[in-house]
């Protein structure tokens, strides 16, 4: 991935029926980067993609591709020939798989021999070379979406827009397609913008995440940063930071880089800097909370140990999500095996421990 931004947008405003549906002051994507727009349904992710692909005219704002403003009819047309887009529905033509994959090349007037070679390469790359002669109407969901992706990659696009491409697939098909697409994007060094509401999907594919809410990008950064340091409560809850506790700073340790927050009468040690009296929301990711039946013995790096009662255990297959009441709600992930070993049951008393560095603070002012 190169550091140069390949696509930039500035002061983008999209209105629909007089109502603002998208408001982005600035956004860029670097060459070879995979940027994921993530957010609940209806937050404007698809609108961003359509606008960036010049398929939807913004009310205001400019799109700059490789340093050139895309604003005239000719510039838009030339730009569209450098991009590809894949939608949630495969949108295949009523033709064979081969003809579908060849369609972008035929539109460009490419010669038969070159089309044949390029299509075969793409079919091979997406693992569908055996389906070339099959009618697109007779494909499974996964095969159809692979065909759609092969069609998008056949034109060797400089940037690909992927709008929830895995959303309508069943789990096995989805898994393998995410895997294959990730590999192809890295191998071909294709710049891509993906829109999804699925966090796992985003984490597996992205170099950067942009979290969207109500038509705005509320946070953008590398996945680890967004996951561990959400800027507000919306991002925190969207990225799965389920323990969110409101409290105020009561004590600041001298030179230790730590402070104490009082939450419903309980004290929580937090790493970082704060001023006494500051109102904060403390967030902890469930995977950072360790459960036990006894308090940890000896001197431990773990700074916070809370006693609580199990309110609910939700099975997630190989994992369990445990909801505890420790004066406030704390959520922890444990493996199913670990839960069985500890014989975790609803109503039972347990201890929840987490390091001071695991607590993420969202400031709320004094």
């Amino acid at each position, binding site marked *: 991935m190169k550091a140069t931004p390949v696509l930039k947008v500035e002061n983008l405003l999209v209105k629909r029926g007089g109502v603002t549906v998208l408001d982005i002051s600035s956004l860029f994507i670097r060459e070879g980067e995979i940027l994921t727009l993530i957010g609940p349904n209806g937050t404007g992710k698809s609108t961003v993609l359509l606008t960036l692909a010049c398929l939807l005219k913004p009310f205001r704002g400019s799109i700059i591709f490789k340093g050139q403003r895309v604003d005239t009819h000719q510039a838009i047309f030339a730009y569209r020939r450098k991009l590809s887009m894949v939608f949630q529905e495969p*949108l295949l033509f009523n033709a064979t798989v081969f003809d579908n994959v060849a369609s972008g090349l035929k539109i460009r007037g490419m010669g038969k021999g070159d089309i044949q070679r390029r299509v075969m390469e793409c079919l091979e790359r997406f693992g569908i070379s055996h389906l070339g002669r099959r009618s697109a109407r*007779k494909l499974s969901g996964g095969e159809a979406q692979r065909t759609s992706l092969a069609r998008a990659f056949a034109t060797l696009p400089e940037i690909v827009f992927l709008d929830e491409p895995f959303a309508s697939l069943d789990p096995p098909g989805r898994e393998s397609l995410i895997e294959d697409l990730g590999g192809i994007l890295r191998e071909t060094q294709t710049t891509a913008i993906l829109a999804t509401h699925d966090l796992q999907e985003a984490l597996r594919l992205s170099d950067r995440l942009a979290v969207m809410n109500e038509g705005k990008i509320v946070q953008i950064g590398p996945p680890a940063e967004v996951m561990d340091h959400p800027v507000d409560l919306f991002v925190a809850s969207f990225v799965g930071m389920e323990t969110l506790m409101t409290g105020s700073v009561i004590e600041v340790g001298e030179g230790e880089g730590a402070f104490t927050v009082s939450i419903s009468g309980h004290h929580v040690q937090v790493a970082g800097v704060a001023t006494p009296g500051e109102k904060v929301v403390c967030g902890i990711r469930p995977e950072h909370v360790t459960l036990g039946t006894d308090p940890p013995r000896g001197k431990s790096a773990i700074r916070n140990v809370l006693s609580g009662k199990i309110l609910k255990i939700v099975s997630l297959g190989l994992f369990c999500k445990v909801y505890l009441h420790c004066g406030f709600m704390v959520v922890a992930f444990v493996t199913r095996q670990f839960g069985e070993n500890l014989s975790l049951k609803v109503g039972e008393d347990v201890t929840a421990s987490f390091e001071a560095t695991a607590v993420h603070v969202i400031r709320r002012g004094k």
Partner: protein
Amino acid sequence: MDLLLEGICKAFYLLITFDPEVMGITLLSLRISGTATIISLLIGISAGTYVALSEFSGRKFVVSLINTGMAFPPVVVGLFVTIFLWRSGPLGFLEILYTPTAMIIAQAIIATPIVTGISMAAIQQLPGNLRLQILALGATRFQMLWILMKEARLPLLAAVMAGFGGVISEIGASIMVGGNIKGYSRVLTTATVMETSRGNFEIAIALSVILLLFVFLINAILTQIQQQERPR
């Protein structure tokens, strides 16, 4: 019953012997209705596609106008075309009333709303994002429209059938603007009416059988194409 059987026998006799008058009438019918259908396809598919893909104020009104047009009574069309082409009418200087050209115009006016309405529905039933997908593949506007029409080819074939079926069998407008002139503007329907009114039932039945055969044959061919492409 004898009358009916006699009529059918006579029809086959006329067909097998390539009766010049019947052949002339048949060919003229085909030429007039075929030309009118082609004109209606050119206008109707373009207009239907435009309305299907565009957003403009008054769109609903235009759609209801098209739908009303689909049920235009041919006699009313015939009446207005006659008035327009009448010697003292707005287009009287063209001097084409009681000619096959006038019949083509009237039939095209009848078929165009039918083709427009069906084309509009055909394009509208395509997935909403398909147009954007085609543009994202780098298509020009013209290429996009062409691909959309190819995708809607099956329902568009229905437009061809409905348009042609509507005009080959209409009578009101043809008789009013064509005048049913022997060897010049006499077509299958106008000839059938005339022969019936004269009591020449054999010839009337013969002409009807030919008309039915035609309608059946053309629709059978189009249906065959349509059903071959049906997703299974």
